């Protein structure tokens, strides 16, 4: 229960980051969405044994976090919470891929290299997604998706879901707390959880009906209109183009290899 509770709090705090006036928030949400997608595709397009070559891409999330004043500790905590699945599946690589691979003068199993690669990919793609929301906020992102051609039904759904997740989440927390206080430490049985979920569902239906009436009373005509119609500016084009050039450069030239060569003179 506390986990989801904490998750909802995190949800709000991440969204709140976008409400401040930072250089990141001033980037058009569409530009940020498109660039982030290009970033993720670049990351996953690398060879499965790529580790060092991926590192220059870290500039993107690091720069976004800096521009958006996003606390690094919060980002790292979220990464740690989400890591288990990728780590679990990735951990099989060192066990299964035992071909020796020379790292400097030491031979290790190639699986360890691909496992490290999975971890780096994970950190890069997930932090980029989190920073996207920290830059646009949920409503900004939904508006951007709408303007990029996502179906209206879906973007409206995203904003509604986001708005009422907190309301119903609070309701469920109160119900669970009330039961816990009366349950004398007994774990909840399915026979109790079923009717509780049922009641929560009935309340959700009733609330949807009230919301619908309130919307009709305010002139709702079946179409949800999202604010956030900022004009595309030259600096947005610059943002997208600049980062895409960097991604393309890192993809084609092994920057760390080149830097290492510069420093040591050895290949």
């Amino acid at each position: 229960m506390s986990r989801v509770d904490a998750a909802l709090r995190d949800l709000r705090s991440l969204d709140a980051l976008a409400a401040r006036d930072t250089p990141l928030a001033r980037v058009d949400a569409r530009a940020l969405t498109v660039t982030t997608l290009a970033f993720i595709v670049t990351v996953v397009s690398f060879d499965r044994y790529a580790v060092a070559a991926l590192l220059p891409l870290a500039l993107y999330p690091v720069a976004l976090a800096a521009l958006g004043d996003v606390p690094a500790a919060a980002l790292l905590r979220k990464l740690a919470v989400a890591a288990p699945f990728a780590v679990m599946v990735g951990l099989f690589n060192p066990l299964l891929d035992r071909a020796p691979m020379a790292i400097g003068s030491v031979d290790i199993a190639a699986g360890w290299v691909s496992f490290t690669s999975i971890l780096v990919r994970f950190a890069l793609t997930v932090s980029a997604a989190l920073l996207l929301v920290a830059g646009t906020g949920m409503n900004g992102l939904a508006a951007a998706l709408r303007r990029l051609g996502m179906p209206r039904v879906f973007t409206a759904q995203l904003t509604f879901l986001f708005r009422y997740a907190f309301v119903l989440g609070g309701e469920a927390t109160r119900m669970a707390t009330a039961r816990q206080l009366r349950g004398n430490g007994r774990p909840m049985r399915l026979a109790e959880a079923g009717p509780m979920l049922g009641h929560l569902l009935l309340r959700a239906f009733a609330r949807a009906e009230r919301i619908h009436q309130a919307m009709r009373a305010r002139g709702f005509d079946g179409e949800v209109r999202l604010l956030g119609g900022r004009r595309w500016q030259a600096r947005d084009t610059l943002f997208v183009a600049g980062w895409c050039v960097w991604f393309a450069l890192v993809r084609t030239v092994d920057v760390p290899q080149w830097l290492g060569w510069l420093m040591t003179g050895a290949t």
Partner: protein
Amino acid sequence: MHMADALLSPAVGATMWVAAGSVLALSARRLDRQSDDRMVPLMGVLGAFIFAAQMINFAIPATGSSGHLGGGLLLAILLGPPAAFIVIASVLTVQALFFADGGLLALGANIFNLGFFPCFLAYPLIYRPLAGDGTSRARVVAASLLAAIIALQLGALGVVLQTIASGISNLSFGTFAALMLPIHLAIGIVEGIVTAVVVLFVLRARPDLFAARTAPTAPLGRLLITFAAAAALIGGVLSWFASGHPDGLEWSLERATTGEAAEEQGVKAWLAQAQQRVAILPDYDFAAPAAAADSEPGTEAAASWPDVKLGTSASGIVGGVLTLVLVFVAGTLLRRTRRSASPPAG
């Protein structure tokens, strides 16, 4: 279980995005045509209900662990396939963006695994025919159980196939399937029972909520199923060849040309190098079959091929560390200039 970006290749990720996106677009069009404006708040609130329901954890008998409602099948029962699919897609999108569950590239795969199977396969083909009009409690329980189990098995199978086709993880199909399917059988049984309990409860309290859903399926549902199944099949099969193993044509070309005259080797090597530079999608095991074909199979191919691709020498390590340092220095500088530039009230 959510698919993760880190385990996906771009070809598989993109294929699943196209599949999920097409189903989403068709569902949206279908809903637009219904033009029932009560659906807008209802879908939003029920999506929020799925979040909230995960806060009500219950003990699973005889295991000591606890479970919660997943909700895919329940949404399909309450809202009908197209609306339920959109709600599930929105829930997964919020989870991918805010909770780092999965990731953006994997979002297509996740929407497909957790949305398409319960909404467009398990609900119309299993739940509805079995449950009938909902007057028989036993039938509702059996239908929910079977539909939830099948939807989750298919979803888990989807995760396995997408992971194997991507070729980032070394797990074999058999091992990964043997891990995932039994876990999801257990999850499916719990999900089916909870769904049945909730459906029976709501049926008793508000039978009118279900009255609207008993209308016969439109042909679009069947069209969607055929289309998406074809897309999944094509995508799955094609990307299997594209990324896990080298492309069939290239591979046979490699084999055919390695025995040829030496001057051809130069041209071929140059072409291969050019292809490596130009390719947007990487050719994961490009070097592996080349090495394997050069030597007899099973000799020292395994030992020699990683070296061909990797520049992990001393300079590689030095360069990697240096890159990280540079990236973080750049980040710190950006932060510092931001702080000094902006007024303290910010």
